[in-house]
């Protein structure tokens, strides 16, 4: 019986420590994501603007966004407790971005894979080795991936 009590108390400690979030790190990550130093030939103004808009939302911790002349693809990482309301967040943010960029096709995703792919693309753009044609191709691939269903 005593052992069980010890296990329960230890478990509670784990839970309590788990709940305290490190906000300073979060802020740092958010600020990092607003800095954009891509050497791309394609104007990334909409991406930077989208980042600034999404930064205002508290639940979003990291943002990656890339655009070409026709589409804007945004992927975000969210706080873990926000995952319960992921669908409504996606809906809200897509609408917000669509209102802000009526001329562009907006793809908003909270999927980790899309985030990783955009991160890779962003790094490629920063090295300046990507042509416009290649960027369009990569973005098409990412959009196709995000629309894949099980």
């Amino acid at each position, binding site marked *: 019986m005593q052992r*069980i009590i010890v*296990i*329960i108390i230890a478990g509670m400690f784990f839970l309590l420590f788990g709940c305290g979030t490190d906000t300073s790190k979060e802020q740092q990550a958010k600020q990092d994501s607003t800095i954009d130093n891509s050497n791309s030939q394609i104007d990334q103004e909409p991406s930077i603007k989208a980042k600034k808009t999404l930064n205002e939302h508290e639940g979003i911790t990291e943002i990656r966004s890339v655009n070409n002349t026709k589409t804007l693809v945004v992927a975000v990482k969210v706080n873990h407790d926000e995952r319960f309301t992921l669908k409504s967040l996606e809906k809200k943010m897509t609408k917000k971005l669509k209102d802000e960029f009526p001329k562009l096709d907006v793809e908003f995703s909270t*999927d*980790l*894979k*899309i985030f*990783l792919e955009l991160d890779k693309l962003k790094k490629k753009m920063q090295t300046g080795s990507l042509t416009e044609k290649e960027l369009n191709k990569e973005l098409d691939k990412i959009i196709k*991936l*995000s629309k*894949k*269903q*099980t």
Partner: protein
Amino acid sequence: MADKKKKNLPPNAQEYQAFQQQREVKRPLLKNCLKAFFVGGLICLIGQLISTFYIYYFNFTEQTAGNPTTATLIFLTMLLTGFGVYDRIGQFGGAGSAVPVTGFGNAVISAAIEHKTEGFILGVGGNIFKVAGPVIVYGVFSAFIVALIKTIIIEWGGF
């Protein structure tokens, strides 16, 4: 046993039942629950790791990584059941090892092993889904009912 039935029993049988209840070893309910919780949690943690592995190294999204993850977990359980390891995990973790999808793999393979002596067609083939069959039947059936309710609510409810 229900109380109504107990009252109808002859007095010496009632006496025996009271005696038996006194002597019975009590089940460690809380301990069992905790064991199941942690074993089940551990299996889910492994599943999450496999899912993340598929997302990082293969062309799967969070949406599509579910299928290969399930398949991998079932495959691993089948191997573990064959080697006799999963039985021990099941003995320790109880429902914690049966409720995740790994329990399904275990149910299939353990039935196959049990009936191997009866031959491959009527033994293994006829009994492999003895335990897992109801899971498939009621899984599909309840999914159908839920889908029906959802369709009715969305189509006619106007949501």
